[in-house]
């Protein structure tokens, strides 16, 4: 606890400010080259004209955004009406990513809780076990998942042989399969930050709450959740954001019916059927969407803090 910590502690002394700026240089350089530059490039490309067979023509155009939001008929000369295809894909992606986040939270929280409440030695073993699958490339794991759950895969064959089912479950190429893939891909990103928060949680707070007449659920709701909330939020962001742009799981497990943003964007840059400005525009719209969601959250958070 911060017992006795003087107020205002943590302000870095001025002497260190110059050093800090210099120490941050490599970070800024890397962020600049590998993060800012590509985003700017993508922003620029989204306002260019597409070249057939991929690539761009350096000619300013709103065409990509126009194609995303508006339907102008087969020959492009009808009065514009709202185009639902891509908005629909976005909506389904948000929905899928949200559901995957909730699933990861429901399973990840108890898992993190379990690990954080073991004795320190077995904690590191559990954490190690959680991370083992991530030593294998995501593509390979997703493909394995596909083989595992397809109609002629081991799961169905086992259940058929055991007499539990008479026809294959038909899991592959469904929303459920995509959910499974997303859940499996991003679960550790939920578990690890929550684990870190729970590990720091002072269990005397739970005792204090129960001393003050709170039952188990009340303690969870009014004390534990609020105190470990930063970990939960971090976990949700770390699962939601990559799920939103994921393309491996939807591509390999979902098939054509369950198209998500990631696949839509990926297709625009693949082979000669692509459309670079359109892909860039879709990526920009996705980026804006994520930023808006994070901003709304930050705003809400500040309001709560300011009370």
């Amino acid at each position, binding site marked *: 606890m911060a*017992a*006795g910590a003087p107020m205002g502690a943590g302000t870095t002394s001025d002497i260190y400010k110059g050093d800090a700026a210099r120490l941050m240089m490599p970070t800024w350089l890397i962020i600049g080259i590998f993060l800012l530059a590509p985003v700017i490039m993508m922003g620029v490309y989204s306002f260019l004209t597409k070249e057939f067979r991929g690539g761009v023509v350096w000619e300013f155009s709103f065409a990509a955004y126009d194609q995303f939001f508006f339907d102008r008929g087969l020959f492009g000369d009808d009065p514009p009406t709202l185009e639902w295809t891509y908005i629909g894909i976005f909506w389904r992606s948000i929905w899928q990513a949200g559901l995957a986040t909730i699933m990861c939270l429901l399973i990840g929280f108890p898992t993190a809780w379990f690990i954080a409440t073991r004795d320190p030695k077995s904690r590191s073993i559990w954490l190690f076990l959680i991370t083992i699958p991530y030593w294998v490339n995501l593509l390979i794991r997703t493909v394995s998942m596909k083989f595992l759950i397809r109609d002629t895969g081991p799961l169905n064959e086992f259940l058929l042989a055991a007499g539990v089912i008479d026809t294959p479950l038909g899991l592959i190429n469904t929303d459920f399969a995509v959910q499974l893939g997303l859940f499996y891909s991003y679960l550790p990103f939920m578990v690890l930050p929550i684990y870190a928060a729970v590990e720091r949680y002072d269990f*005397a*707070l739970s005792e*204090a709450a129960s*001393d003050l007449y709170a039952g188990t659920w009340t303690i969870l709701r009014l*004390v534990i959740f609020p105190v470990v909330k930063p970990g939960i939020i971090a976990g949700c962001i770390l699962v939601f954001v990559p799920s939103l742009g994921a393309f491996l799981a939807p591509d390999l497990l979902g098939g054509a019916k369950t198209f998500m943003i990631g696949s839509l964007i990926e297709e625009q840059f693949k082979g000669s059927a692509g459309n670079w400005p359109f892909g860039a525009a879709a990526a920009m719209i996705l980026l804006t969407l994520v930023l808006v969601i994070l901003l709304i959250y930050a705003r809400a958070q500040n309001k709560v803090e300011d009370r």
Partner: protein
Amino acid sequence: MASPEIAVSIDQVVKRYGGFTALHGVSIDIREREFFTLLGPSGCGKTTLLRAIAGFEDVNEGRLLLKGVDITNLPPHKRPVNTVFQQYALFPHMTVFENVMFGLLRKNWIQSEAQRRVQDVLEMVQLSDFASRKPAQLSGGQQQRVALARALAPRPQVLLLDEPLSALDLKLRQAVRSELKALQRETGIAFIFVTHDQEEALTMSDRVCVMSNGRVQQIGSPKDVYEAPVNRFVADFVGETNLLEVTVNKIKDGLASVALPGGNAFECPAAAVVDPGVGHLSVRPERIKVTADGQGDLDAVVTGHTYLGTDIQLLVRLADDEVMSVRLQNSQTTEIPEQGAAVGLVLEAGAARLLAD
């Protein structure tokens, strides 16, 4: 049934952690409206006992009664007692006001009454101006008072305090002692206070229970445990004392005739059960007078001084090489013997006490 003026009855409580026994059949009756202190060295089981009363530890044997009602098997949130935790355990995401309100809302107080109660309690601990602060924005002393207010707000039948002053610095600790004592009188409920600091125990308590190794050694008023300790442990732990090995010649009606080191005969009260033979005499350093060599009950040589401000501590060595400590008041009239001087020591009447081992 416990008699009605008993607030908490601890009846033959045993607590084991695996093969280790932390409490060996502890029995204590704590009265209504008293300031009761559990005193003992670190690791003697004070916290374990307090946590058993609060309900955080299940006991292996024995019973706990609260105002005659058996609470042994009730979970903590069903026991009408509240705790002030050693590190306070304030809810960091709640304001001072919300912290204090917490228990009241769980007990379904009406909102308006709860708010009034919180204001009253905050006033009682002089924190009304800090109601909207978060715990991290308070000093250690203020946090301690929030913890106190939070525990008192739901009007518990008994308040449990686990070394609540240990995180405060010395000056503050002394000020808080009297505040705490006043608060106990004002609220009129029994306080069970845990400390390893004998001075704290002596100055604040109505009664003190001295514990050691999971056992009760003595229960009594501060005066009892200081002036009439029942055994060597209590004499040694509560205050400072000299333990002299003596030959016990006779014990009659609680009065012992002993031979002091050096052979002089001496009479003093004896704690309950001491058999003739070799015994230990407890002599408080401030109850010894220094006189000329050969004139006292004991002969000794001064081996050193320690300046303590109000007192001067004299270290003396007896003929059999035993070292004793003598406290002389630091006043202009006191003569302080030189180092190496041979002196006589007079044990004041009632200054010494024969103890059970």
